[in-house]
């Protein structure tokens, strides 16, 4: 008989592992990836590959040569950051800009804090916001879907539905006047609209989101509270003045709401640790998104809303604790 293992209980483990969860997320992103290739073709391909490769390579170089540890790229989190960063940018973004974005996302937002599990802010969003502020023009020229499939840097661009609404309202037009320029709700649902690679198709994201929920990789709290609060808050504004404020369904289907609700806000490291905390977090994101979209300077607010709530997460974790057993005494 060979030597016996001695260790304290428990002696068996659920088959969960970080790797399995990360690869589950990657699988859930496949529908959105396929649709982005369908709508944006060449540009989507180049940007996705560049983003994923540079994120993985930067993480490998930093962990191996700067930290002098075993490289952590096999756990899949760098691949996910790469995919999500790619999904947050327009498909005609030059390669060198995406590489800078990867360096910021992995190097600054994740590795400076200590690697997986230690970052306070969502790395892909930090990368995206950095690029938006540093390179505002390339980051806000949106290729039109289907028309630019075989072009890359010379793609034909146009305004996104959110952009059309923002500019139109600023110029004094009413929603009903603008409605001819905005895609129908069905088009928005399927993805026939301008926007970043991953955010356009709500149906693809829903399929991925359902997969994540079934596999218990995410819980319902954040998607429901985020989308729910967006519907309620924008719904109130719409009911008050439908000519000035567009309907809630439009808000849910455009911009980064769907991608944010299922893939970005649900990031474990930067979201709260209790169900109640997650609900509060999701509501905060929803309200901030609508505030920025309607009353703020940018047409899209999801990235900023999530990053702001990431900063609030430690506070939520401190004050919203799980109910301890034995605190509610029933006889």
């Amino acid at each position, binding site marked *: *008989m*060979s030597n*016996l*293992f*001695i*260790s*304290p*209980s*428990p*002696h*068996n*483990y*659920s088959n*969960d*592992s*970080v790797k*399995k*969860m990360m690869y589950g997320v990657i699988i859930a992103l496949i529908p959105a990836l396929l649709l982005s290739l369908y709508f944006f073709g060449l540009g989507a391909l180049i940007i996705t590959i560049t983003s994923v490769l540079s994120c993985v390579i930067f993480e490998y170089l930093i962990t191996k040569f700067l930290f002098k540890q075993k490289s952590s790229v096999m*756990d899949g989190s760098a691949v996910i950051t790469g995919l999500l960063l790619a999904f947050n940018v327009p498909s005609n973004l030059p390669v060198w800009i995406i590489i800078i974005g990867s360096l910021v996302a992995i190097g600054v937002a994740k590795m400076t804090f*200590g*690697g*997986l*599990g*230690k970052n306070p802010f969502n790395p892909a969003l930090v990368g995206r916001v950095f690029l938006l502020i540093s390179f505002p023009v390339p980051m806000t020229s949106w290729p039109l879907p289907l028309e630019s499939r075989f072009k890359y840097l010379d793609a034909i661009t146009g305004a996104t539905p959110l952009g059309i609404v923002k500019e139109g309202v600023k110029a004094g037009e009413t929603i009903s006047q603008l409605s001819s320029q905005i895609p129908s709700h069905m088009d928005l649902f399927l993805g026939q609209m301008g926007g970043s690679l991953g955010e356009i198709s709500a149906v693809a994201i829903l399929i991925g989101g359902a997969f994540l929920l079934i596999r218990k990789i995410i*819980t319902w709290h954040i998607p429901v509270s985020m989308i729910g609060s967006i519907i309620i808050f924008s719904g109130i504004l719409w009911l008050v003045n439908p000519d000035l404020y567009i309907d809630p369904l439009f808000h849910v289907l455009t911009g980064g709401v769907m991608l944010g609700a299922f893939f970005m806000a649900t990031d*474990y*490291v930067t*979201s*709260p*640790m*209790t*169900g109640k905390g997650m609900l509060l977090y999701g509501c905060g994101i929803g309200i901030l998104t609508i505030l920025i979209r309607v009353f703020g300077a940018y047409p899209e607010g999801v990235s900023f809303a999530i990053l702001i709530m990431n900063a609030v997460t430690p506070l939520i974790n401190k004050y919203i*604790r*799980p*109910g*301890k*057993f*034995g*605190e*509610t*005494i*029933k*006889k």
Partner: protein
Amino acid sequence: MFKTFKKGGVHPPENKISAEKKIETLQIPAVVTIPISQHLGAPAGVIVKKGDKVKTGQIIAKSSGYISANIHSSVSGTILKIDETLDSTGYKKLAIAITVEGDEWETTIDRSTDLKKEIKYSSDEIIKKIEESGVVGLGGATFPSHVKISIPKGKKADILIINGVECEPYLTSDHRLMLEKADEMLIGIQIIMKALDVKRAVIGIENNKPDAIEHLTKVSKNYQGIEICPLKVKYPQGGEKQLIKAIINREVPSGKLPIDVGTVVHNVGTVFAVYEAVQKNKPLIERVVTITGKSVKNPSNYWVRIGTPISALIEAAGGLPEDTGKIINGGPMMGKTVTSTEVPVTKGTSGILLVPQQESERGEIQNCIRCAKCVFVCPMGLEPYLLMPYAEKQLWDEAEKSKILDCIECGSCSYTCPSFRPLLDYIRLGKSNVGKIIRSRNK
């Protein structure tokens, strides 16, 4: 819808591979080693010496303190030595080794198998008889049963809860006992009901044992005041606080005992031992033990005399499998690993589990990814992801404030963690240190 506790819990694979095996009697070994501390509380005091001849059922160590229990010889023979011996805790503790000669029982013990239904004794007499026979909690905690049934002044129980849950994977000793000794168990329950002066008892059984539920429901119709409550299969359904919450929806407050919410919980094995103690004058000298594991040839259940080395059990089940990596005294969630096959079966041994090599190693520890799974599964509402760094960094005040002492050490957190972090190891460290600090504070 089956009742269960709401907060937390996990569902490890059940692997009840020995559930169909009738309990057989294991052959008495050549030598038994009986530790003097097989229960919570003070170890018993030895009252025999080397060379003494003892009979089966004779008392060999006396309870020494309020929370303590008597120890009886499980065999007849000669005392071989009284020495520090390795036991299943991994430490060497004082134990009485007896060379077996025949199987001569004490004459006061009634060895007949006929059912004795009439309970002739008063409440105090019952408690005295249980104390004399050294019965302790056979679910694994080994708390002296006569102490549990002696309700302190000012407190009252209104319901008795019986734990037939056996939520640990692999273990089936309670299951078989419920199927094979149902009448004796039910009389035992009535005995305890009389001692506690309660009119109502509920037996909780997880619904992965439908035959036990059906059988007991049928038989309990002949016994006044006893109900059966089928429960959802969820670990740790057998934890007494979770069981009380599931069956009667009362939550035992932090730091308090079940009697503070009007109930007392006993395991089905203990209840059977109470029947034998009160109706047959038989002290606790043997118990049902499951020997099991994926590579074991004949996973089965045996009546085993206390003090039998576990090697005897392993031989009876087909020998030690080639690929054994770990030997566990108990189930996979809360059992203790054993360092040698010569350690004895004690009152708290409900099963011996042999784990294959490939399932024995722990995964490599990674960073906490803050997935909150440990928070969602903790049945006591604690936050293991915080308790572990508190213990690591020795922040005992914060650990105490976060109610680290409420932890029931069920292992659900470590079971679930996708980063293979040894959460429970550090929580145990924290509990022991915080406990020390509190004790020195109260001095």
